[in-house]
């Protein structure tokens, strides 16, 4: 899932990460239309394949987040969506035929923080606090090409401090085993120290020093997206796709989903003990109350 205010480069980054264009015919709203916009949830699913390994990638986009003049509770549609996916999985898991469960749960949420401020804004804090127990949040500093290196360092520190201060649980990289080689450990350390990643995205390929690289062309220079000295894009890509993808999925399964499941069952059992004599009527499905089948299953359990 990608979340953040409009204009922070979310779609460009997705494009750079997966090297496919998911947003060909996108219509952007004008400012007056956005004054009272509500948040939508858009899913794009692509099947990509590399060297025989297939990946079904779903990008969940949240246009309209933080755009309106009054943004109270604008993260509610997003939390509802995440809960809905959990509920779907829960139901599937408790069903009779479990061969082809489609895992639509959100494994990772890339949250884009604006680089134009001094740190986290109230809407950022609100969003992360609403979602940190449900999904792995990876905060990113968007459009990092407006910050010089010293400013990036300061901003990262600031954001880390504020994350601690507000008690937000972002995704923590797992500790690497002590028998891994030094290189790997070094890499891992660097990774941890550079969170949150300062990223730059680009849809265009430009010519730099005789090579064609993905980057942004400015009158004063060329920003290369894949240059580690310019931004943390490579680190993000490695982390997300090459090294930590499985860990993200595991944490979603083992921690967030289990939390949800436990919470759900607890609610159910407490409700059942309250009205144990009455047959609870079959509700018509507004989430997150599961239906009668699931209730029976829970009771049996």
């Amino acid at each position, binding site marked *: 899932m990608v979340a953040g205010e409009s204009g922070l480069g979310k779609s460009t980054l997705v494009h750079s990460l997966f090297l496919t264009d998911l947003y060909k015919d996108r219509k952007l709203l004008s400012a007056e239309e956005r004054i009272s916009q509500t948040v939508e949830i858009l899913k794009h699913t692509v099947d990509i394949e590399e060297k025989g390994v297939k990946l079904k990638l779903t990008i969940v986009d949240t246009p309209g987040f933080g755009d309106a*003049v009054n943004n109270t509770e604008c993260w509610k549609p997003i939390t509802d969506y995440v809960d809905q996916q959990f509920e779907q999985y829960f139901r599937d898991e408790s069903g009779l035929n479990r061969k082809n469960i489609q895992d639509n749960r959100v494994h990772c949420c890339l949250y884009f923080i604006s680089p134009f*401020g001094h740190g986290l804004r109230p809407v950022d804090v609100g969003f992360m606090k609403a979602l940190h127990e449900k999904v792995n949040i990876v905060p990113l500093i968007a459009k990092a090409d407006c910050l010089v290196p010293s400013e990036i360092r300061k901003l990262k520190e600031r954001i880390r401090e504020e994350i601690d201060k507000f008690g937000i649980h972002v995704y923590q990289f797992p500790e690497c085993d002590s028998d891994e080689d030094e290189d790997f450990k070094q890499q891992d350390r660097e990774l941890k120290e550079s969170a949150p990643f300062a990223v730059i995205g680009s849809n265009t390929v430009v010519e730099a020093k005789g090579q064609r690289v993905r980057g942004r062309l400015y009158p004063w220079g060329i920003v290369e997206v894949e240059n580690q000295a310019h931004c943390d894009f490579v680190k993000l890509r490695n982390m997300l796709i090459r090294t930590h993808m499985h860990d993200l999925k595991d944490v979603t399964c083992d921690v967030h989903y289990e939390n949800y499941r436990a919470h759900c069952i607890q609610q159910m059992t407490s409700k059942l003990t309250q009205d144990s004599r009455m047959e609870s009527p079959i509700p018509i499905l507004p989430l997150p109350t599961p239906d009668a089948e699931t209730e029976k299953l829970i009771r049996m359990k």
Partner: protein
Amino acid sequence: MAATDLERFSNAEPEPRSLSLGGHVGFDSLPDQLVSKSVTQGFSFNILCVGETGIGKSTLMNTLFNTTFETEEASHHEACVRLRPQTYDLQESNVQLKLTIVDAVGFGDQINKDERPIVDYIDAQFENYLQEELKIRRSLFDYHDTRIHVCLYFITPTGHSLKSLDLVTMKKLDSKVNIIPIIAKADTISKSELHKFKIKIMGELVSNGVQIYQFPTDDEAVAEINAVMNAHLPFAVVGSTEEVKVGNKLVRARQYPWGVVQVENENHCDFVKLREMLIRVNMEDLREQTHSRHYELYRRCKLEEMGFQDSDGDSQPFSLQETYEAKRKEFLSELQRKEEEMRQMFVNKVKETELELKEKERELHEKFEHLKRVHQEEKRKVEEKRRELEEETNAFNRRKAAVEALQSQALHATSQQPLRKDKDKKN
């Protein structure tokens, strides 16, 4: 007759004739006198900076005026928008400038965004000036003019379009202050994106009827350059107070790993254009526009609200004095009328209550009478019954007496009878 003569004089004012001078008189030094007077008086200029926290307002001010205005970094977690004015005295050559920079702290940070404090602040400054103007003993000469001469609106460089808050705020401010929109942190947008972004922004402003400040093109001296600049709005600026060595000079710039963005390089950003337009060319025009257009509009609205008019049906201009007197009389008569009304109402209410009370009294009386009658009735009936009863008792007594008499007679008779009977029986 004298009156008609006067009339003729005032209506038939002859056109002033232009004459040529025979020699040098010397009133061509009037502009110089004006200049020296203004210089001694000093100038004042008030800038309002509106934009998100951290967008680079303070840095740009520092860069524009080539000095450091001490301001601490603002936090993102302000509860509401605060306006923080700070006044500085600057001097260049022998010209003194009293610069006031008003910062809108906390703008755009709240979850439920609000732009009203800014509008209220601007109105308050106009109000202060109006009050000063309307005073009996006023000193406009000495008055520290705090009206905002220009509002620099900082647009976030998203690359797509204006934010909804930007649109709403600018619409509210365009009739109160000269707005110059600026694209802040422009080193984040590439040239092609910038071009598209500028077009999009101007398009949105026009289609929503937002009137931003247009550099004046009626004064010949500056018409050309202003016209060119008007086409470059909104200016994309980069601010920096750090100096970096480029070539063999120290210039103000931002050093990135991939290059150096020079603030004063026209190719890199529009900072130089902004400085030209804002300070070197149009500062005086900005002040004048504020006074003659925005302030007059405010004044007119405010006075109309209070009920003043410029002229009545006979197109005789009212003087403020007369209008004031008329207003006062009106107000007093209104007051009297209201008093009368209230008194009337009071009296009416008292009457009503009295009537009610009387009504109640009457009812009670009636009831009392009624009950009394009923009581009498009952009493009578009871009396009758008693009489009847008495009669009956009397009758009964008489009968009883009669019966007793008869009985005693009968007894007598029977006492003889049984003897006869016995005799009969014996016989």
